[in-house]
Every structure is written in structure tokens, then in C-alpha cells.
């Protein structure tokens, strides 16, 4: 079964809740895009720029839009990871009131997850529900865990999911851009900037456009907002800990 273009078919993968345990996108016949293409609500989109524009519209207009950075951009594995992390922050810098909630690892959080601190692939819907997130972007999550997470979010929440994937993309995300290296992530940031300006949405004058969650606010002296570019790798406050994943907690979970 070949994937059809967005002009030929109804959308397949849309914000849920899709059901108690809906079929996976692969079971519904959704296939991954080839290089240069994207997935647009389960439909093959030949021009990935159109997918990026829809990502921008959703992230700029949906309540509590959130970026979920995964281990591959949270941990300083190598220069490439650090560069991608900078590109992620450049995307964040274009989205007024955006939240950033990390997925630093893949272990279940027991006895209880703090949905304002992390998202976890074993129960991602708790973070979505807890923060009433209606649009999100996953970046830097290993593909298997991203796929689990995306399936559960589609099943149980009304969140519109985007996967900016370094590999081949994700069928269960509503919007997918594949082969996202640092350069393509910066292209996404530029597309968001363009769409934002077309929509007349302005950034705060002081550059503090990222909104802290309650937990993050507590570890940042009750500040409510921050400038994402101040967290660029190499700075003193870089890393997962900057977004509420405290050193003490990391030691406890180690």
C-alpha cells in the first residue's frame, strides 16, 4: 500500500484521543517518508517545508505548546550533540510562551512522576495531561522510545505531536520532518520565524519567551520566564538540570 499525498486522502493521524488502544499508524498503512519528504497527518508530503510551516502554526497557536528534548540533545555526547542542542534552543527562541520539558532518560519514574519536571516514554500522557499541552515537538529521542511515546499520546490525549527526527521520521507523529541535523533544525527555526511574523505574533522585548513550569520556576528563584539562548551549551547553566532536573534527583536516580 503506497502512501498518498495530502491532496488525495483524508488525514489519518490526527490529534486524539484516538481510543483506548488504537491501531498503530503502521497498521493503518502509514509509511515513512523518503528523504526530502515529510509526513503530514499520516499522509506523505513531498515538500517537507509545508510540514515545517504546519509545525510552526500549531506551536504558535496551541495552548501550552511544548518542546520535549530527548537524551541525544540533552547530554553532551559530542560536539554534534551540543550543536543540535543550540539549534533546539534557537527553535525555542521563536515560540512565545513555549514550555521546554526534558526527556533525559527512558526509565519509568516511580513512585511518582513530576509532570512539570520530565516526560517519560512509559507514561507520557501524564505530562501532557498535567500541563494541558495541545502541541509539542520531540527532538533527540531514540526512535523506539519516540514511537512508544507518540502512540500513547495519540491514544490518550488531544495533543498535536511533531517529530523532528535525525533518522527516517515517525508514523505515529502527526507531523514529521526527517534527517534533522543541526542545519535542518535551524531551517525549522527560520520557518517558524517566518510564519510567526506572517501571523503578526511578536516575541517579548526582553527575549524571555520560554515559560517555566512550576517546578522549573522553583529552581530558578520563582522566575516565570527565561531567554532560551542563555542556556546555550557551554554556558554555566546548560543541561537537563537547568530545566528542573536537579543534580540531587539525578544522583538519586543513578
Amino acid at each position, binding site marked *: *500500500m503506497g502512501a498518498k499525498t495530502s491532496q488525495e486522502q483524508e488525514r489519518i493521524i490526527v490529534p486524539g484521543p484516538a481510543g483506548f*488502544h488504537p*491501531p*498503530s*499508524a*503502521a*497498521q493503518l498503512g502509514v*509509511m*515513512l517518508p523518503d528523504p526530502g519528504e515529510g509526513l503530514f497527518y499520516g499522509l506523505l508530503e513531498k515538500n517537507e517545508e509545508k510540514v515545517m510551516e504546519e509545525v510552526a502554526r500549531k506551536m504558535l497557536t496551541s495552548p501550552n505548546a511544548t518542546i520535549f528534548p530527548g*537524551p541525544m540533545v540533552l*547530554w553532551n*555526547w559530542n560536539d554534534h550533540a551540543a550543536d543540535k542542542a543550540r539549534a533546539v534552543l534557537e527553535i525555542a527562541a521563536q515560540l512565545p510562551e513555549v514550555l521546554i520539558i526534558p526527556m533525559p*532518560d*527512558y*526509565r*519509568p519514574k*516511580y513512585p511518582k512522576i513530576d509532570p512539570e519536571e520530565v516526560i517519560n*516514554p*512509559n*507514561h507520557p500522557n*501524564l505530562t501532557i495531561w498535567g500541563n494541558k499541552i495541545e502541541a509539542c515537538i520531540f527532538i533527540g529521542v*531514540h*526512535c*523506539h*522510545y519516540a*514511537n*512508544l511515546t507518540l*502512540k*500513547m499520546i495519540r*491514544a*490518550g490525549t488531544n495533543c498535536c505531536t511533531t517529530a523532528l527526527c535525525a*533518522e*527516517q521520521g515517525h*508514523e505515529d507523529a502527526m507531523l514529521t520532518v526527517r534527517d534533522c541535523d543541526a542545519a535542518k533544525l535551524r531551517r525549522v527555526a527560520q520557518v517558524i520565524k517566518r510564519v510567526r511574523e506572517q501571523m503578526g505574533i511578536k516575541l517579548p522585548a526582553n527575549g524571555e519567551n520560554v515559560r517555566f513550569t512550576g517546578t522549573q520556576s522553583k529552581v530558578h528563584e520563582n522566575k516565570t520566564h527565561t531567554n532560551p539562548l542563555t542556556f546555550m551549551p557551554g554556558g554555566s547553566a546548560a543541561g537537563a538540570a537547568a530545566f528542573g532536573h536537579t543534580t540531587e534527583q539525578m544522583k538519586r*536516580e*543513578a
Partner: protein
Amino acid sequence: MSETKTNPQGDPVTSMEPEQKTNPQGDPITSVAVPKADAKQDPHEAAKKQRVVTPEYMFFEAPRTKEFITGSESAKEAVRRSNVDLSIAYPITPQSETMQLIGVLYGEGYVKEYYRGEEEYGVMSAIAGGSRAGVRCFTATAGPGTLRGLEPIASWPGHRLPAVAMFTCRVVNAPLAIQPDNIEVSYLLNCGMIVFHAENQQDMFDFIMAGFMISEMNDVTLPIGVCCDGFFVTHARGYVRMPEKGIKLPPRQAWRGAVPVLDAENPPARLSRDAPVQKSNFMAYNIHAVWQQEVWAAVERSRKYIDRYMGGMCTAENMENADAVIIASGSAAAQSREAARLCKDKGIKVGLIKIRSLRPFPTQALRELCKDTKVIVIPEFNYVGWLAKEVATAIYGHSKAKIIAGPHVYGGQSMPVELILDEVESGLTGKKSTNVPLSAIMGGVDDPAAMAHFMRSI
């Protein structure tokens, strides 16, 4: 009178052959000694000179020469060219000499690590560890060994462990036999792993090599079982066209896998200890459910790579204007090809569909190929007819063909091509079959009751 030498059973030893060397258990040592080499010569010299080529060059462009070798030898030659890091053996008897030959490759430096496990459970568990650590793994087993290792084998897909395992099928139930009976394939079909079925020595060579590449694709990241019908393929010789020994596939790029590799030395090491689901609450069940969905989604994603590297999940021969179609996999495909030739001699046009990939199954291709077919004959080397069930399920509602689930041979029997010929003629003429019970024939009508009876009875 001089004392007569006797063997352990008390029979006089009359052979003039030199005394047979034995191991400490008393078994004769039959292995070929490592050839004596010049002390200055590096035994790994040739292996070190191998150069990495692209899969496309290896599979489609490299010049090939033809050799007349056994299936075990073709597996060895595939592994030689596949840049394998780790191979673990347990020499179940009687299996094949495959893993013994991989040991020779280790001696020559073509395989980086090799050892004998305690038994198959240990072997398959260790393969899991090797794959999780990020290295390219290969092993082989057969029959009871497959089933002994089945618990860890069945956990490989869930752990997203790329590896290639060769299953040289033989009887698994008592009484045991050494001849082929591919009942064990049916135990592998629903593990979540990708399963290929090799017809001959050439398939064995090609499927193993393609298997490594497909297995390690990021969006696949699954183990692959390459099955063949033991003895016919492993022990018998056939022509195999192979590229030169001096080239090999690219190494595994574990860092690109769908899951993080087990790496205790590089941060963040905590990622490698991410626990699987352990808690009994709704969330745990939910993650486990989507985890299984994801494994099977990965099986689906492998289709395009099977098309790319193997030329498709099935092949079709002489389908145009065919009166009947034979659908077969493994050695049965070879017998079916000969049966089709005999049919042609008798003026009956018979097409042949050879299934190469059982998981994923070529459902769409079969629906297209069989939409106008009147009679389908499915010969198999097992009692239960697992392939017939797969075919019937795939084309139900898309073809009105009469499906004959047989002939079947099992317990190590050979399959005379005349049996297949008889079923083609019976299917076309309505003559009563002498080898396939009526309950194993689904008529060419849309009758759910008949279908249910068929699925229950074959």
C-alpha cells in the same frame, strides 16, 4: 596367540587405518586441523586486507564467481563477507557444520569473537547481550535447539536487537530425525522477528548478507531468522555465485540504532540501564501494548528494505495465463519448480510463487498475483500447513481460488514431485486426491463456514 584389539563394544578392530584420535569423552576427532602456516605469516592477514564496500556494490555490482558448496559452507562464506563481530556456537547434534565453519573463520580473523555457549538458552541470551552492546552478531541452531533457545529468541525483537540467526529446520517433536521438517518455522513466525525461508544454498548466502543490512536499519532494528530445510540445504551441495573474499559489508553503526546501546564506559551510562516495564498498573500495561505495536510496525517497515536488497518478499514465475498456481517456500519451492515443469510437459500451465519472506508476509503481492487464479496448491514439509494458513488468510476475500493445503510430507520425508503434480491435476479436474484430505481443500466459493472448517482442519 596375540591379543586381538577390540572396540568399546567388544568387536575386534580389523581396520588397517591408523588409530583414531579421540577427545576425553571418547568421541573421534574429525575436525580438520588448522593448516600449518609459516610462523612469520599472520593467520589474519587476508582478513585484515578485506575492504569495506557498500551493500549496493556487494549485492548488485561486484563480479561473482560460481562455486559448488554446501549450505553450511555458503553460510560461512556469507559471514566471511559480512563484517561479523561476534558469533556464539552450541553444536547441537545433529545440526550442521555451520557453526564449526564459523569457528574456522574466527581462526582466520574474519569474525572478531567466537565461543561455545553452555547450551542454546545461553547462546541466545549471549547474542542478546552482544547485540545490545552494539556489535554485529550471528548464530545458528536447529530443531530442538531452536526451541530450547526460543525464550531468549522471542525476547530479541522486544529488546530491538539486530542480529542474524540461521535456523536449519528439522523435526522438533519426538521421535527425532535429522532430515528436514520445517515445523519449527511456525514457532518463529509470531515472535516479532523477521523470518526468511531459503530455498537453496544461493538463497542462504544472499539472505544472510542482506539480513544483516535490513536488521540494522534504524527504523527496523530487529533480529532476522534465516530458515532453511536442514540437510537438503545445509548438507547438500549446490551452485552459489559469490563476490570475492576480499570485500565485506560496512560495520554496524550501533549509535544509529532505534535504542541506545549498552555502553558502560561512555556517558550517559544510565541510558543503558533503562528498565523495561516492571510495574503492574495501567500505564505499565499501556506501554507494553504500544511496545508490541512498535515491534510489529518495525516488521512492516522492513518491507522496503527487503525489496531493495532482496528484490522482493516473493518471486513469481510463469504466472501469465496459468491454469493453476503453486505457492511454496524453502525446499518445497524447488520441488514445485520441477512439478511445474512436469505439468508443462503434460500441457498444463502452472505458475509458481516462491515466498522468500514469511515475516513480513507478501500479502499485497499475493492478492494481486492470485486475484484471477482458479487453483492454488501449497506443498509443505510439515504436518500443520502453516504456509497454507498464511496464504489463505492473506488472500481471503481477494481471490476465489480453490486452495489445496498440500501435499504435506513430514518427519524427514522427501517430497516426490509427482505428489504436487497430482494435486494440480486433482484441483483442476475435480478428481479425488489421494494425498490431501477434503478438509484441507477450501472450495472456490465465498463460504465463511467452509473457510472456518478449512482453517481449523489444515
